[in-house]
């Protein structure tokens, strides 16, 4: 027995030594922006999660095929609609060598429910969490929650001791510009650990030797994240071989990259829909010129909708890489149908007439807020929209700015007319309604309010009978579609470009999982 163990250790040491010695390889990864903070509960935002995902793990997670599977929990069961048990892996260690137990899980879920957490709404149905023994966790919900697993897949588990030692018990307060240890350091159970962090310049991920799982390609030992803001520079860096992988390759350059012999391009429909929001509750537009709020009238919203030539945007701005959308959700999400996703026809004449009928024959003026570094060609789409709306007499002034300011100012209710994109990490329509349509919801900045939709959302949250639940979802989609609560534009298609020998599987949520990467 003892001898056996010793042999094992020796072999492992030998193997690790040999593998790191012979095939230490690095993948240099670039995208436009950087993670906003390393604190995994402080910001619920794409690139931030992409970075955290390499270092932190959750109870359950989505695999390459996007289906939910075990991660830190090996199995789980619901003993009644409101009580769940999660059984944890017993061989998990944090990268500092400390064992992960149910204490850490309880701590992390409670941490994500703190007022400074950006996930507190996300898991608002979790009413209690406690450790049954060292490797069993009980989670109670306030009402039956059919999408609990989906939600838990984005709640990362941190070390209780590490957080206590480093004064990071509560998440960093992002809105108050708080500076915490956890915002610039990360220590999780995942396949990588961060050894260097220079925000917006360079982040170095090194393989976590204490990780419980197995890398697909053991020779991949380091990932360098090198954000490059300028699209042309990013492409130049890829083409000249300084970068191995770009996860937001500019659509206009895909042909050029694809024709290069040492490079390849992959595209996949992304789980993200781009749309425009119009504040339909304010009595007077902040940036208008009519003294009232034209967006209050459905005809006006429809006029704007029908004035947008989405096919032209697809062809010219997106170079064919987008799917025009009729609702703010995409294939694969519970509640999506192609019928719902049909757009109202593009019709300038009808749009003009609608506008005149609504009492604005000469149009009006409004400001369109746009991010310029968040979505694929975001600013260019907005510019195109400005031109199209100009043709029906609506004078749109474009205001494009960096994503963090854009989002913050939207949250501060400063937008009349704005662009936003919405992904559905839970793959369930509830996520969309809960954030975008429910009365007073945190991202419902169009101030849409409809009692029937709110009631349907309650059904989605509590109904375990799937037929009834699906009916509620379908009904809610119909209502918001008929009301033209938002102007859907398209589902984004994402494109990753890499060196031919670097293989990182592309995923519809745009999150690379480097544990599945390989270099040939």
């Amino acid at each position: 027995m003892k001898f056996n163990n010793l042999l094992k250790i020796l072999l492992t040491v030998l193997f690790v030594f040999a593998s790191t010695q012979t095939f230490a390889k690095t993948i240099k990864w670039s995208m436009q922006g950087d993670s906003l903070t390393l604190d995994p509960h402080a910001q619920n935002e794409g690139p931030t999660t992409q970075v955290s995902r390499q270092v932190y793990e959750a109870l359950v997670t989505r695999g390459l095929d996007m289906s939910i599977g075990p991660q830190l929990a090996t199995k789980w069961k619901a003993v009644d609609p409101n009580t769940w048990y999660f059984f944890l892996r017993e061989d998990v260690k944090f990268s500092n060598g400390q064992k992960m137990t149910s204490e850490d899980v309880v701590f992390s879920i409670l941490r994500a429910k703190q007022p400074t957490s950006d996930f507190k709404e996300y898991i608002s149905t979790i009413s209690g969490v406690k450790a049954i023994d060292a490797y069993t966790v009980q989670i109670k919900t306030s009402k039956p929650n059919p999408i609990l697993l989906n939600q838990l897949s984005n709640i990362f588990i941190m070390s209780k001791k590490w957080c206590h030692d480093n004064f990071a018990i509560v998440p960093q307060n992002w809105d108050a510009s708080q500076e915490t240890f956890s915002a610039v350091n990360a220590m999780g159970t995942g396949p990588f650990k961060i050894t260097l962090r220079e925000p917006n310049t360079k982040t170095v991920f090194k393989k976590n030797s204490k990780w419980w799982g197995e890398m697909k390609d053991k020779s991949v030992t380091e990932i360098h994240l090198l954000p490059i803001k300028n699209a042309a520079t990013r492409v130049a860096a890829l083409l000249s071989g300084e970068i191995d992988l770009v996860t937001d390759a500019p659509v206009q350059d895909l042909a050029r990259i694809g024709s290069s012999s040492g490079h390849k391009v992959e595209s996949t429909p992304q789980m993200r829909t781009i749309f425009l929001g119009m504040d339909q509750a304010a009595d007077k537009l902040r940036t208008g010129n009519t003294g009232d709020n034209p967006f209050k009238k459905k005809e006006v919203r429809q006029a704007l909708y029908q004035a947008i030539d989405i096919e032209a945007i697809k062809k010219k701005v997106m170079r064919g890489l987008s799917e025009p959308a009729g609702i703010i959700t995409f294939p694969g999400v519970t509640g999506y149908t192609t019928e719902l996703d049909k757009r109202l026809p593009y019709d300038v004449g009808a749009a003009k007439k609608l506008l005149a009928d609504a009492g604005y024959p000469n149009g009006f003026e409004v400001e369109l807020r746009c991010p310029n570094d968040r979505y694929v060609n975001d600013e260019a789409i907005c510019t195109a929209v400005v031109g199209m709306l100009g043709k029906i007499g609506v004078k749109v002034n474009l205001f494009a700015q960096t994503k963090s300011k854009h989002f913050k100012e939207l949250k501060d209710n400063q937008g009349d007319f704005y662009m936003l994109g919405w992904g559905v990490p839970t793959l369930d329509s509830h996520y969309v309604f809960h954030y975008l349509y429910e009365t007073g919801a945190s991202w419902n900045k169009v101030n849409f309010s409809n009692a029937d939709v709110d009631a349907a959302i309650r059904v989605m949250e509590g109904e375990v009978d799937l037929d009834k639940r699906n009916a509620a979802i379908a009904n809610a989609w119909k209502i918001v579609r008929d009301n033209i609560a938002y102007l859907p534009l398209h589902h984004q298609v994402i494109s990753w470009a890499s060196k031919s020998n670097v293989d990182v599987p592309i995923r519809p949520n745009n999150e690379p999982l480097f544990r599945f990467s390989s270099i040939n």
Partner: protein
Amino acid sequence: MDNKKLNVWDRIRDSDIYFSFIKSPTAIASAIILFIILFCSFFVEFITPYNPFDPSSLSLMDAFTPPSWTEDGVAKFIIGTDGQGRDMLSTILYGSRISLIVGFSAIIFSLVLGVGLGLTAGYFGGKYEMIVMRLTDVQLTVPSILMALLVDGIARGIISREMHDEMAIYVLIFAIGISEWPQFARVSRAATLVEKNKDYVSASTIIGVSNFIIMFKHILPNITRPVLVIGTIGLALAILAESTLSFLGVGVPPTTPSLGTLIRLGNDFLFSGEWWITFFPAIFLVILAFSINLLGDWMRDTLNPKLN
């Protein structure tokens, strides 16, 4: 500069400029190019049928049309269109108008400020002069681009954002102008010091001519030449500074693009084969700055051999 020399200068002033201009092919060529650019930029409405600043007149389906002589080119867009379907030629001309307006205004602003301060400093002397000259020293060490960025940064903080787009061009003029004035101030002060002690100035003072009239009527004409040289070279610098700031994204807003903004926007299409979107504005800017510089160089050699 002594009296005799100055008189000689005065006598041949009219002829020598003309003479050396005629003798210098570079000067003629650059002046012609400049004139064409100026003319086209300021009368662009009559030259091209397109107004790239009116978004409703554009068609997105025209976007990325290559120059007319290439395979997919269209005759109505001579040098192609950009990503929004704007005709490149008219966009460039409108853009160069903005660049020129900013450049000229900035130079005039710094000229008035610099000459005003330099004249009065030289004339009145004393503590006032010391302060002004100290200021020019300080200002000279602060690079123009930094000064402009700072002014722009502060303006962004002070002016509300709604106002900022409208104010951007004035902020830019101020920002660039404020960093060019010391040159003017130094030259005019030096000339004033020379003139001040001459008999006719003393005489004028005695017979009660006001300081203002002495400064502007008697002293000012003496510094027109160096000021013209500095102004021309400064104009090229100002245009480049404007395009640089716009390229960095802190200049004029993209809805009314200057040459720098156009280059920044076109830069995204450099690798995708749509080279004309960034190439033409860039080459236009270089030609503009180069011809102004050539003219300035010639002027310096001709008008004021002493000036460095």
